[in-house]
């Protein structure tokens, strides 16, 4: 756009691209972890500009997309209960669950409120003392600290009708799971930007150490991403994988220790279900015992039926980087952003939605 930010400077971008073209010799596969990265890569046409030696794969970093159907079904089951208000981020409301979606439940009369932040949910709870308000907590380390803060606030202000359905997930374990599956032969990973602002860059150290895979933390501007790719190429060509930060304005190696402390004071690590990958040990967050009364799964008896995945949807293998939306038979035919079949088409950070918008037909 017209003004030239230091991280959008076309001349700098050109220089970086030249360097990438010059240095990249080996054929490599890089995964961009975040849906936000995928959007930026497509929006700025970065794939077209990279040399043929570099193949970019989209990863699992979309909180809406990785939410398992079974977990979404719990949110819908809660919404169907009497005197329960379910508060959720907007994208989540449109994702089809096994039998219904929050949107359909809402049309059928369930009280579901779309909120922009967890603070809104807390406000709804204090305005509706006669009702139970459940916040559907999705997201990675980026959102979990604010949800933790809301629980502490509920405690201080004695808002007793507030609880969390914690579907929060943490990133490093899913990276490990994908690497352990061995389906995608990766040489480097563009590590999450906003997540790393919280957890720092140290938690990725096991990736170069144990898997010999290069890592660069990146923001969401084109220059951040080009710089990350440049770093990865440098690490790979020199045979020295490590963790670098291409997003200095956002990420410190040690992260935001205060936010982490806040998150850890309310949440503890638990196993979690990931769409397309299944249960991953120690990859989720649940409320600690002392905050059990804010845990919707403890407060309510939630019994959704057995989970059913949308037929024909290959979101799972897209999230693992194994397939692209172009390999899905439903893409653009039955599945569009107006009537999405799977979550990757619903979320603005979903790979299918990104392909749909930016790739053209």
């Amino acid at each position, binding site marked *: 756009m*017209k003004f030239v930010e230091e991280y959008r400077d076309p001349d700098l971008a050109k220089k970086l691209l030249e360097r990438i073209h010059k240095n990249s010799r080996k054929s490599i596969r890089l995964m961009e972890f975040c849906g936000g990265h995928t959007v930026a890569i497509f929006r700025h046409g970065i794939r077209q500009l990279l040399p043929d030696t570099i193949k970019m794969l989209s990863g699992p970093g979309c909180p809406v997309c990785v939410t398992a159907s079974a977990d979404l079904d719990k949110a819908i089951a809660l919404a169907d209960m009497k005197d329960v208000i379910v508060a959720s981020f907007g994208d989540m409301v449109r994702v089809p669950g096994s039998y219904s979606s929050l949107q359909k439940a809402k049309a059928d009369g369930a009280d579901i409120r779309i909120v922009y932040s967890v603070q809104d949910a807390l406000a709804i709870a204090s305005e509706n003392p006669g009702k139970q308000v459940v916040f559907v907590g999705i997201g990675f380390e980026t959102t979990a600290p604010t949800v933790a803060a809301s629980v502490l606030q509920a405690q201080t202000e004695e808002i007793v009708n507030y609880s969390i359905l914690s579907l929060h997930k943490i990133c490093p374990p899913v990276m490990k799971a994908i690497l352990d599956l061995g389906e995608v032969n990766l040489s480097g990973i563009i590590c999450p930007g906003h997540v790393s602002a919280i957890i720092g860059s140290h938690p990725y150290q096991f990736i170069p150490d144990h898997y010999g895979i290069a890592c660069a933390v990146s923001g969401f501007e084109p220059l951040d991403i080009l710089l990350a790719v440049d770093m990865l190429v440098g690490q790979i060509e020199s045979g020295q994988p490590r963790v670098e930060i291409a997003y200095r304005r956002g990420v410190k190696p040690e992260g935001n220790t205060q936010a982490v402390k806040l998150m850890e004071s309310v949440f503890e690590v638990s196993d979690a279900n990931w769409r397309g990958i299944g249960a991953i040990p120690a990859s989720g967050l649940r409320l600690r015992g002392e905050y059990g009364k804010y845990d919707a799964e403890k407060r309510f008896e939630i019994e959704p039926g057995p989970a059913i995945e949308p037929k024909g949807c290959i979101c799972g293998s897209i999230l693992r980087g194994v397939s692209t939306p172009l390999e899905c038979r439903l893409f653009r035919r039955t599945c569009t952003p107006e009537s999405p079949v799977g979550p990757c088409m619903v979320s603005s950070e979903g790979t299918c939605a990104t392909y749909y918008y930016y790739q053209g037909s």
Partner: protein
Amino acid sequence: MDDKILLAHGSGGKLSHDLIESFLPELSNPMLDKLDDSAVFDLSGRLAFTTDSYTVNPIFFPGGDIGKLAVCGTVNDLSMSGARPLYLSLSFIIEEGLPVADLKKILVSIKNTAAEAGVKIITGDTKVVNRGSADRIFINISGIGVIPEGVDISAANARPGDKIIINGNIGDHGIAVLSQREGLEFKLPVPSDCAPLNGLVSEMLAASKKIRCLRDPTRGGLATTLNDFAEQSSFGIIIEEERIPVHRAVMAACELFGFDPLYIANEGKLAAVVAAEDAEVILAEMKRNKYGKDAVIIGEVVAGHPGQVVMKTTLGASRIVDMPVGELLPRIC
């Protein structure tokens, strides 16, 4: 008068009467003051007629409020067909409990905006509904205008070679409103661009009749408007990312929330498709108006890729700019 609007204010009785009487001085003109069941007037020529309802939340935002927005929205819709807006209707649906002071503020803003645009409100209505049946206040405004001789503006009129002009920074309104949303409040140094554009349009038309398409990129943003042009004319559109003006604060907010400014709403912007030979004349004329001083040519109509909008990115790649679907939501990640 009470300090909150009550259901009784909409009942048609004494309170209703008092409420209407309290409006009148703000909006007064001979046609409205008659308070007849309909406004009666003469008009001749080709007419443009439009209606829109306004439900913005929050109702007050930096650079405007729901009242100003409603007048501008309807005035601009008329202007985009090349019409000179003349008369408006004004209809309120008010949720019981709205502070009277808020209503007053909205009225003053309606009055000022209508005065700036040179339009008259000649008929109106007020209803009050139960708490929960509306969100504070909804406004419907219909408008009527006259299209001058020789003006033919339609999205279908774009031709290969035509230039595309925008009258300034995009995305200000959408981000200004977002910045006031509960739970998201952030300080934005840029107010909404909400403005009546009829003056600008009439100056453009005085400079050249070769204005083929005009549209205000409101909801759905510039991307939607350009797609409309491409689709309805069955030609392609190429724009250059580098030329599209965006305030850096709006850009920064977009980065934060994961938005593309091309999809963010504007309320004081117009996108014009004009004949190449008159583009510079029109641009120069626009720059003389306060709502057009930042006008720039951002791209052109091409014969290739019919119905599609393609953007050359700052980095030198190109990509499709598609229609948006659904509401823009801040990213979670």
